[in-house]
């Protein structure tokens, strides 16, 4: 059971890592002017909800499986994701708004945020991997015993 949870988390985490990388690439494309703000934002906005859900699922899963430490680790980022999503002003086109992304250094802060998330997800990835393997080994041991 334990390992199933972690293996699922591992997969989810991989997806989040890919998503973060995708965000970073797309934002840096925008920075370099390879794509325009409109298409960049519509691309990114599509993935905001999956990201929120993906992260929320892991967080909840950790809560359910009573892994307090990992849950607490995930909680701030998950909260931030949800907060950011909810707080989008009604006139904006999503978390990434093409009319504002170049203003007030938003592009940079989005980039920074994506970087931090990437680091965080990588950390989680190894944590899950470790937990999954130790959990699996434990299961093996139990079985062999």
């Amino acid at each position: 059971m334990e390992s199933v949870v972690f293996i699922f988390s591992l997969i989810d985490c991989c997806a989040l890592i890919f998503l973060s990388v995708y965000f970073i690439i797309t934002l840096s494309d925008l920075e370099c002017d390879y794509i325009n703000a409109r298409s960049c934002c519509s691309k990114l906005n599509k993935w905001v909800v999956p990201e929120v859900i993906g992260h929320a699922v892991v967080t909840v899963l950790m809560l359910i499986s009573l892994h307090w430490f990992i849950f607490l680790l995930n909680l701030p980022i998950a909260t931030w994701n949800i907060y950011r999503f909810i707080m989008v002003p009604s006139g904006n086109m999503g978390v990434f708004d093409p009319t504002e992304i170049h203003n007030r250094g938003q592009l940079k802060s989005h980039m920074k945020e994506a970087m931090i998330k990437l680091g965080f997800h990588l950390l989680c990835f190894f944590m899950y991997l470790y937990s999954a393997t130790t959990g699996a080994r434990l299961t093996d041991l139990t079985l062999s015993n």
Partner: protein
Amino acid sequence: MSAPAGLPPRPAGAVAAYPGGPGGSREAAAPQGAAPRCQNGPVQSQMQFPSGYGSHPPNYSAPSGHYSQVPSKAVSSHLDNQYRASYQSPYYSAPAQNVMTPPVGTNVLNTRESQQFYNSSTPPHTVGLTEGPAQGAIPSGSYVYTSAQQSYSAFGDHYNTSVSSSVASQGFPLNSDHYAMPVVSSAMYPNVSYPPAATSSMYGQAFTSQSLPAAGQFKETNTFSSQSTSVPHSLQQHVPVGYNSTLSTISSAQSFQDNLSKSLTGSVAKVNNQVNRGGIDSSQPVHSVSQNVQLTKPGFGAPASSALISSVRTPAPGLSSQPRSSPSITQSPDSALQEALDSSSTTSSASPVLNNYDALEGGGYPETRSVTNSPVPTPPAPQTSKTSKPFGYGYPALQPAYQNTAPPTPVQATNPSHHPGFQHYPQQYPGVNQLSSSLGGLSLQHSQQPEGLRPVNLTQDRNILPVSSVPAPVPNLNSDLRKLNCSPDSFRCTLTNIPQTQALLNKAKLPLGLLLHPFRDLTQLPVITSSTIVRCRSCRTYINPFVSFIDQRRWKCNLCYRVNDVPEEFMYNPLTRSYGEPHKRPEVQNSTVEFIASSDYMLRPPQPAVYLFVLDVSHNAVDAGYLTIVCNSLLENLDKLPGDSRTRIGFITFDSTVQFYNLQEGLSQPQMLIVSDIDDIFLPTPDGLLVNLHESKELIKDLLNALPNMFTNTRETHSALGSALQAAFKLMSPTGGRISVFQTQLPSLGAGLLHSREDPNQRSSTKVVQHLGPATDFYKKLALDCSGQQTAVDLFLLSSQYSDLASLACMSKYSAGCIYYYPSFHHSHNPAQAEKLQKDLKRYLTRKIGFEAVMRIRCTKGLSIHTFHGNFFVRSTDLLSLANVNPDAGFAVQMSIEESLTDTSLACFQTALLYTSSKGERRIRVHTLCLPVVNSLADVYAGADVQAVVCLLANMAVDRSVSSSLPDARDALVNAVVDSLSAYMSTASNLQQSMLIAPNSLKLFPLYVLALLKQKAFRTGTSTRLDDRVYAMCQIKSQPLVHLMKMIHPNLYRIDKLIDESTIHVNDRVVPQPPLQKLSAEKLTREGAFLMDCGSNFYIWIGKNCDNNFIKDVLGYPNYASIPQRMTQLPEIDALSSERTRSFISWLRDNRPLSPVLQVIKDENPAKTDFFQHLIEDRTEAAFSYYEFLLHIQQQICK
């Protein structure tokens, strides 16, 4: 001239070329007679040649020599004679003159003309005409030269430039700085175009000379076609007005394509000297030689050689007998208007000088002289004193010979302070006059304390308002650079001394940013046609006056410091027809230029002008009665819509359905097509909805005549604006263009419907103001779609109820449109608004327009732009996408300093606006601003531009209000004052802490911020309708600085004693200049009458005991009691005071795009509250008085 030491040894060959010139002698010291200089000139030129020209045929050297024009030179005998005769004398005579008086015009010869090639070489003839400015007596020679031209086409050159030189709007004749030289220097430049014989093969000369009458205005009209087509013939006609003498017509070469119309209105003495040279094929020399000129008058004309055509000079004041023509301002009256009308922009008649150049040869360059539009008439003298700075200063190695440099003066010594990077500067030396200015130059060392730093005790000093309008601070630059710098009207920086590091900027607590008005109507604009537009290879900066030329073949970008090659064709200067003077090309002489772009700058063929009108015809709209006004305005201005033969126009009306109008040519009458499926809008017919204006004019007129009455009985109250906009977008997307939307109520059906969000009870809340942002992203998305298809949406909101402007405005904000709002509009109940709509529409329909535009702002490496304000869509980091650009749009940007600017002493900013004119030409308008970099906090404060700071803060506060909250924004505004003043006070240790001290440059800062806090956009506690507030915010974001300042801090004048006031002359009118009054009720005396200029409104407040004569003469009523409540116009009464008042008001009106509404206010008038709300120094229930505000700030500082 620069110090001799700097000069390279001159090559022997060169010397040979100029036997006459005593090259060796440099007169470093005292400005002596011109003669030596002249010689110097050649010498220098010689010097240059070797290096630069080595590769070139020897021929050039000779010509160049000519250009340098030393009279003494032995050039072709022809030339010599002429010059000597005409020119030398002036020079010499002048000698003693101080720098102050530039030699006047006689010296100047311009060569401008397109050169023509003549195959056969013929001796060039030069004709110089010079006229003494004032002298009627002097014969002005006019020459007409017609030379047979040969076809130039073969030679095609790159450049066509038309330049229009400006007329100084207010009167100054401006000298081109460059050209005007102090006497001393004058010798150097002047003039001349000589056709070098040697070169003759290369260049033919066209002749155009114009002689301008001295004083007076005259206009020259040249026909100018901006087109570059090579049409053989150029005509320039000058019509001197008022002058007997003169005229010249020029002939010209076929090469001129452009017809230029010039109107020169010069004030006073203008001298144009032009030298023409014509080469003729035939052996017959055509030449006119005319020399006129009174040589004897040394003082006269500024020698400006304007490159191209005419130069206007101002006589040096000091000169003897010259009659000075009044310094008064001569404006080309309509220049602005004309330009507006004339879509062709630069070529418009407004610009006085035009040149035509064929593309053939080097192109013509117009010279533009910088004309400043300084509103205030000032005597020309100051300008004359300026020495022109050669552009060439860039070459360190080169002597300024070409340029007119003043002889070295002691000043030079002071120069060391210049940054090494800019070595050139030190070399040049401006005339003595400029010494002081140059000292001030890059460093403040020499000046004891800049005026900007003089401490002002705010709490004690009650009269801080200047007498007339607040001038823009002048950057503390070398005077030569200063003259080259971009006009503050187009380009302003909040800090005219750029701090070296972000840390220093943070310490100053002032925002760093730019305020731009890039597309404003200009009276003078050099237009350059060139096959290659010279740009930096790495950062793509356009070449500009602030680049440095490392040698003749290379230039160093002033933004990224990359060294670039000078293209071969750039070496040829059509202005002077010389080769190897890239620093004299108009691109390098003017900080505002316009290029005609080649196909490299097009993604698709230039679009035609396309106008679509989307009109609300619901019951509410019909009741308001705006349709009649709109249709009538359109009918009147149909022919004046900017555009060419491809112009297209279309109409859509909507209520709960959307109606299209088929205007296809051939129909007997307009056909209405109704689409009622508003949820899935479609175009009922593929064509015929947008039709060619000229082909279907009759149908369009029929429709416009019929429209106002078509819906009179409608009972439809709903408005399906969203669907109509979607339809409009579909209609426009193939071409792009402009959609003008007239809306009178909240959209209530279909896509984009909105709900009322305003709670009237919250209008005067002092707490949170909600709903400043859009309710839906529908309009924003639509705007982005439109922007992507190069379509802009302009919104006219004529509404008496809440219409959620915050949401609707998005359609214009992000598509680069503009927004007009007429609260409580009704054609009969509110005639003032109706009149305003009518006038605004006239301007709106006829002003210039640029399509499919993009604007990029570049700045010196180390600076970066992080936030943009205005109506546009930021497409990539520094690229603003402007589907349309109009002359009334302003922009602001905020910058940060990412890398410290320690290795440079100058920071430069360049905006390039690429657009398609209504004539289908792709053009690039480039403005470049150059500012010094400083490393001390005091210098930063000394250079603060308080108006720019306040406008930028207002923009930031709007953003803050929307993204955070209004109280936050208000706090931020107050903190901005508190922080900056406390930072200043902590730097100035000798100040007493108990007083509130501000540097002189910021003395108005607290006042302006208080005004902002009481502005509709930010005020709290006073009942403000949400739409009014949002509209004020939109205006703050999109108005250029001049108009915004009037909105923030209105101007108050006392007008019942205008007869006694000092006056200026504008055109033929006498305009009184009453002093500015404080915005306080204490100034309103019962005996007076006051005019308040709020930008969009004029209020005339009549005191109870106002002189009956004034009331009778100006208002047309016998006494105070009989003045009606609603009075919106002043009658035309034949009395001096009436005339003065009206001329003053119309002068104020002329300066702005949108016609203000005039309201006469008596005590009982309901508009009284509006008027009194603008008295921002007074206390209101909800806000501080100015004095209280100061105390509040002081308290905050002490905390």
